[in-house]
């Protein structure tokens, strides 16, 4: 066993070194080979590391960055999988890189973003101390199967770690009910009634049916999607009270938000260094995680105003009159990005890039569940709308049916030419790419203007 561990570590470190010499990321591949040599490698390497793991459909990366910032401010020795490689292979690579040849980790803590489908294997081996589930929405169906299946995976994963503290979204019926029938300690986060104006029930709802009895939920208020004050008139299942509750949104701008949060009975004014409603949820999740990991509420609050945004998540680039990249990958996330655009006061140009590679989901039907009609309502303020990506034609078709004039929609598939166009714009440019499209466009921007590679 010991020999296998050492061999796996050596192979993993060597493959990583070669990858970097070849100017590649080497984020997942080395771990994949290491696991072939020693399938239980992660459990060996994670033994003496206190880990916060973050999973869920939307907000994993941003929430991870927020938690990392708290660890950094608190002076903790920690590492994380910042590259976004969040399957067991990528996570294992990260643990190997941070350990000695003997399998002893150099850090005391880790902040790990984990793919929902990978959670079963990862949690069982890693035995995290804190598990955050941000929310559950429909996502790459071709990869995950349906949402009930994803939820079952996470549930199975949680059952393998009864000692972990769970940080769950109170407002998401599919997420908060993960606490049912498990002995884990739970901290709920959420947004209370009155914090934001309640929305009507959206046309597509993922969590509308009672997880316990199958009847339709009613809602006291809805923040977005199926997130809100749900209750079942039939069996009485209802939203649990949140330990970390956003009680008021004092101010929202294109730079960030000021919110009032009730943190286990203490009211704090919190400024979140990223705009948009969904990042307020991420902030509440991060606060719960930071406190669950044993740090102070002050550290949590400071982290939220000081963290840098993640890779492609509201990331800013100094090109033309300024560009901002907002990753989109599923209907709810994309709707929230467009809601953010609706609050932008000035004229802007927009790039939407749709790919259907493995990292994006091969099935692109989600664009038809997404409310691009709300974007069409803004068309007077959109100077240029450029469509890109492997499935640009399908994206253009969606926009036509959303109400855009198809003749005003330009297709530009070449990323370098796309960046040329961005540089010529005299108004801000917003980029809405799917995952692999984000990597391509980002690389083209970095090539032109400089910036860090994706694994940094």
């Amino acid at each position, binding site marked *: 066993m010991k020999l296998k561990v050492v061999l796996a570590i050596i192979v993993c470190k060597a493959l990583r070194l070669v990858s970097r010499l070849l100017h590649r990321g080497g984020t997942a591949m080395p771990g994949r080979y290491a696991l072939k040599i020693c399938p239980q490698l992660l459990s060996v390497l994670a033994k003496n590391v206190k880990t916060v793991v973050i999973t869920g459909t939307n907000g994993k990366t941003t929430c991870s960055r927020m938690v990392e910032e708290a660890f950094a401010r608190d002076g903790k020795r920690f590492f994380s999988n910042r590259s976004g490689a969040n399957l067991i292979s990528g996570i294992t690579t990260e643990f190997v890189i941070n350990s000695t040849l003997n399998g002893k980790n150099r850090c005391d803590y880790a902040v790990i973003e984990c793919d929902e489908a990978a959670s079963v294997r990862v949690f069982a081996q890693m035995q995290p101390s804190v598990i955050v589930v941000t929310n559950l929405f429909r996502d790459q169906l071709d990869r995950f199967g349906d949402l009930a299946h994803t939820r079952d995976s996470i549930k199975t994963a949680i059952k393998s770690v009864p000692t972990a503290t769970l940080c769950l979204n109170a407002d998401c019926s599919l997420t908060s009910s993960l606490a049912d029938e498990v002995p884990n300690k739970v901290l709920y986060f959420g947004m209370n009634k009155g914090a934001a104006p309640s929305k009507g029930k959206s046309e597509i709802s993922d969590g509308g049916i009672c997880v316990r009895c199958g009847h339709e939920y009613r809602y006291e208020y809805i923040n977005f999607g199926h997130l809100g004050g749900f209750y079942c008139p039939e069996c009485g299942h209802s939203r649990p009270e949140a330990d970390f509750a956003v009680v008021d949104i004092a101010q929202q701008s294109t730079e960030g938000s000021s919110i009032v949060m009730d943190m286990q009975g203490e009211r704090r004014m919190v400024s979140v260094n990223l705009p948009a409603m969904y990042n307020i949820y991420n902030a509440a999740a991060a606060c719960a995680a930071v406190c669950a990991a044993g740090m102070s509420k002050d550290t949590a609050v400071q982290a939220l105003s000081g963290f840098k945004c993640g890779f492609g998540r509201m990331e800013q680039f100094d090109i033309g009159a300024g560009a901002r990249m907002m990753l989109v990958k599923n209907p709810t996330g994309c709707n929230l990005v467009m809601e953010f655009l609706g609050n932008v006061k000035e004229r802007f140009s927009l790039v939407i890039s749709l790919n259907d590679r493995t990292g994006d989901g*091969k*099935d692109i*039907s989600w664009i038809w569940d997404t409310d691009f009609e709300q974007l069409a309502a803004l068309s007077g303020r959109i100077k240029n709308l450029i469509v890109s990506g492997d499935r640009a*034609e399908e994206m253009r078709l*969606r926009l036509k049916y959303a109400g855009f004039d*198809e003749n005003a929609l330009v297709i530009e598939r070449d990323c370098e030419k796309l960046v040329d166009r961005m540089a010529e714009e005299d108004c801000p440019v917003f980029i809405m790419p799917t995952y692999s499209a984000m990597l391509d466009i980002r690389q083209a921007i970095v090539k032109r203007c400089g910036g860090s590679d994706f694994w940094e």
Partner: protein
Amino acid sequence: MELKICHLYGDVLNLYGDRGNIITMKKRLEWRGIDCTVEKINPAQSASIAGFDLIFIGGGMEFDTRLIADDLRADRAAELKAAVEDGVSLLAICSGYQLLGSYCQDDKGVKTPMAGLVDMYTVCGSERMTGNYKFALGEKSGGFEVVGFENHQGKTWLASGLEPLGKVICGHGNNGEDGGEGLRYKNLFGTYSYGPILPKNAKLCDYILLTALERKYGLRELQALDDTAENEAFTAINARLG
């Protein structure tokens, strides 16, 4: 002219892009000056489907589909069967399509009775059949090619005498074995092409709309539209499928 569309179980069976089919039917009617109303009927709602010109049933999660099967058997099946026999247009997709058969058998061998509208059944296979695929519609259904995305584990078998909607050119279709895809019975169109099949298959959309308009108004032909964007979306994915 006006078409009344019923989105049956729309709040529950709406998995992945089914909304695209509704949007497409509505827009393509409106662009031709034909009014269109869409009404959802959900499980346990007593509203009748009588009076609708076109019924749409989308795909759903397994958990939801079982709930629906109960409702469908309770009171809806006879009404739906009468409508189909009467020539009302019906488009059913993926698990909505499976619902129309006599039963579905899951991976543990458990059979759940379905609506029994047509003589077909579905058995859970060993592998998921996922990906872009292509099929050619039968002569009776226009004869042209359709591209879609399939994602199912159920294998559907039609009784002899029932005609598939088309023949698989690449991909799996009903069961990955007999080359058939979907079902065409009177004005019932069943398919595994889940999610937004109609937007980039504008010809199929118009074909289905016309069955309803012909039944209601005797209309034989639809006014042509500028389908450049639709056709380019079709061509792009069709080229990849070879």
